[in-house]
């Protein structure tokens, strides 16, 4: 089937959106190659179609079988960024995947906020442990009139406050900080695994799993 200008415009529009989505998380050359491959697929499918009067229907059917561009981009994201994050488990790849999801999906946003808080809290405890030997009078548990008021580092120390905990603060803060960071990282990976399973589940062809040959 040879496309009219309208059909060509529809294909170009589809590829334009897909290209923009892919380039938002892929290196430019990789995105171009992926786009070229999807275009090749679409054009091959169109070439195999018999000429039909309702060109629009045929084009829409082919594009629907490829799936909407944002969905295809999400599949690339899942196989590229999320897969790397889950297989390496590294802080960088996990953070990159979470950041991308936080800026593009509702669930990702809430998960991102909670995980960001976890990373910050963990890092704050580690920083407290690191600062204690340098500023012993400004780091620890601040107690005013026998009542604990704050924990961490304060410059200057609150007037009338005693610093409790001594150097025991260091191992305690290290343990809590590392514990919180480990739990947060684990939660981040669990979220990515959940998102990938949900995403791949939602884009399969309806009834594909149920059917049997």
């Amino acid at each position: 089937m040879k496309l009219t200008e309208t059909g060509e415009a529809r294909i170009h529009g589809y590829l334009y959106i897909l290209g923009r989505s892919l380039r938002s998380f892929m290196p430019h050359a990789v995105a171009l190659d992926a786009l070229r491959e999807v275009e090749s697929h679409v054009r091959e499918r169109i070439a195999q179609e018999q000429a039909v009067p309702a060109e629009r229907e045929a084009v829409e059917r082919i594009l629907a079988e490829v799936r909407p561009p944002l969905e295809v981009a999400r599949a690339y994201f899942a196989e590229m960024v999320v897969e790397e994050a889950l297989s390496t488990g590294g802080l960088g790849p996990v953070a990159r995947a979470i950041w991308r999801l936080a800026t593009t999906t509702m669930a990702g946003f809430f998960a991102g906020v909670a995980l960001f808080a976890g990373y910050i809290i963990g890092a704050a405890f580690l920083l407290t442990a690191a600062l204690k030997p340098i500023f012993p009078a400004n780091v620890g548990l601040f107690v005013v009139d026998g009542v604990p008021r704050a924990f961490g580092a304060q410059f200057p120390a609150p007037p009338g406050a005693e610093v409790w905990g001594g150097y025991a603060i260091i191992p305690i803060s290290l343990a809590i900080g590392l514990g919180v960071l480990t739990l947060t990282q684990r939660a981040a990976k669990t979220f990515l695994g959940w998102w990938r399973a949900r995403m791949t589940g939602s884009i399969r062809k309806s009834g594909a799993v149920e059917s049997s040959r």
Partner: protein
Amino acid sequence: MALENWQEQLRRGGLDLAILLSVAEAPRYGLDIIRHLEEFTDLVVTDGTIYPILGRLTREGSLLAEWVADEGPHPRKYYRLTGSGRRRLSEMLVHWEQFTRKIGRLIKTLPERMR
């Protein structure tokens, strides 16, 4: 919902193996792989989502991709197994056969009325 998740995980686990099997004998391009999978399995995947998986298998070194411009009406990206892909496929087949044999044995212990 739990059954759907299990089916999805099963499908996902089998898909890598199915794709590697599709290109084991001869190089194939994406649409050809999809048609091949649709012909022999019900691991039907949406057209646009097989390419990211092919990309991952290529990055992992199991497949080698090459554009061929002068074969069809449009350039096609052909995939073929690499040496490490062939080794991986052999290992996957051994694991798969062992797995299905063990599960099959387990199923046979179940009384007929419960199957």
